[in-house]
């Protein structure tokens, strides 16, 4: 059971690493990296869901004749979209970090708290 579900355990470990990074890190860039790890874990999870044992690629004209066993194409489309979204948000997060450094002079998240109370 462990070897069959190994990808799901890896996903869980990666997602928790990203989550703990976002919670416990104090450097802004490390928090950005942790969010990126979380997004990659979620994308990996979607891809793994589509896998079928011994399946071919889901492209009709590249499959040999008479084959009906292929991996699901829908998760691949979902993951492509999710990867692009993760890329856009990581880029925006890094540019916000650059602007925060210019304004505050520090990358420590405990110092960047002018809005409180």
């Amino acid at each position, binding site marked *: 059971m462990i070897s069959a579900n190994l990808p799901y355990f890896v996903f869980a470990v990666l*997602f928790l690493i990203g*989550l703990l990074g*976002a919670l416990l890190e104090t450097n*802004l860039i490390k*928090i950005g990296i942790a*969010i990126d790890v*979380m*997004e990659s874990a*979620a994308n990996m*999870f*979607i891809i793994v*869901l589509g896998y079928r044992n011994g399946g071919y690629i889901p492209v009709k004209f590249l499959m040999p004749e008479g084959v009906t066993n292929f991996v699901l194409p*829908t*998760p691949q489309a*979902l993951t492509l*979209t*999710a990867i692009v*979204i993760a890329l*856009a*948000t990581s880029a*925006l*997060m890094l540019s*916000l*970090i650059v*602007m*925060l450094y210019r*304004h*505050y002079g520090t990358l420590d998240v405990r110092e*960047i*708290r*002018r*809005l409180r*109370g």
Partner: protein
Amino acid sequence: MNLMNHLPALALAVPLLAAFATPLVAAISPKARNIWVTCVSALVSLIVFGILYRVLTMGTQIYVMGAPSWNISLPSGFAIPVRIILEVDAFNALVAFIASLSALAGAVYGLKFVRKFTGLEFYSALYFLLTAGTLGMIMTGDLFNFFVFLEISSVASFGLIAFWRDRPEAVEASYKYMLVSQLAAQLVLVALAFIYGRYGVLNMAAFSTVVQPDLISKVVLVFLLVALAMKCGSFPMHMWMPDAYAEAPASVTVLLVAMSQASLVVLCRFCFSIYGTAMGTAVIPWTLIVLGCASMFGGVSMAVVQHEVKRLMGYHSVSQVGYMLTAFGVGLLALGDKTAMDGFGLTAVAGGIYHMINYILYKGLLFLCAGALYMAAGSRDLDKMGGLARKMPVTSALFLIAAAAISGLPPFNGFVSKWMIYESVYAVHPILMVVALVSSVLTLASFVKVYQTAFLGPERPQFAETHEVPRAMIAGMCVLAVAILVLSLFPSWTVNTLVRPAAEALVNKASYGAAVMGGAL
């Protein structure tokens, strides 16, 4: 080709295309950009009004993207829908129309309000993207499409909150909002992956026909509920809301309010139309009620002690969302039980929906008036303002309307929706009604404080040259004020024609599924 059939797709396509065409139009001249922004926003409102009219007269509308015809949801030989389907019923259409009105008001207001930087065509482009994302979140019938529109509107809002980038607080607010929002989006993605892995469907209506109350479905509902409740701003996860609402330009805040209500629309979709009686646990309705009560009281008690105008209003947003969460939680509690539903459940859901549309309108008007105060007084700190009613009579009159509506004073629309919520919530437990009433009193107290310190009082010498704000800003505020007055003076028409069909469409899980699946379950 009957254009009326394609309105849902047009409502999403027009703002998206306009967003990318705005820099080209703005290269002609700034006046061309202003005319373009106004015309496209008015066109979007008109399209969504057409959708609302069609839904109220002809029932739930669906639109299948990419099919040979607009309503082939199940192609021949398929048992599940395979394309992205937009499903608009009375609930969606009503909230989408009010959201498009607030987008129009914010766009017209922003013509003269946002003047500090030169890249204003990118501001308008992001504004249209945020409008498209909000309308897409409200009208979609597909789970992954909802995730895509959630991210579109989130990324556009990150850019717009940090728009005044010479203020360090604006960039800080945008970063904090981005952090929590990304985490919520990843939780939503993982939940959608769970749904796909377990059931194999990605369409909301198809999912509603196959969902069973097992462990995975409950975990999915918890993830989606926490992520969407955070986007609405419910209590423990609300701390980004006053920061982001205060630092964004006022015209953007109006659309952020609409976006938070779009997340609440999808939350209600999941709880009522998709899960409904297959929820299998009474913990979820009570969670909504507890989060709602905590938001109501915590939000307004933090608001009373603030002295910066927009931060105060941001905390009030938390409190108002608490009203809606409590109302929907009470409606969920009554869901399987016919006598409870007729007694207080349907009134609770109708009160929650009416409060949603009232909230978008009066909160938008409040933020626009706060922006006018910022423009006139040069600062958002209430300690530095005073006596502005002599210089800005129109703004103070509109602020009075909005403040009376949010406090629940008769005869405004806030009173009617809060009264419906009080009466239905009392039937579950009287303590809920007590919390709601105390929050209303504290809301009135804090708005009396804002009105008195900002507008009333003796004339201050530093405001001797202040004058009324430009006409474009007044026009934007009047759009919302007219909508508030219409909803206030004709409450029974509103409740019978707009709100009750929306409530009945929301709780009717079978008709939501049948609109796409064709009734053959």
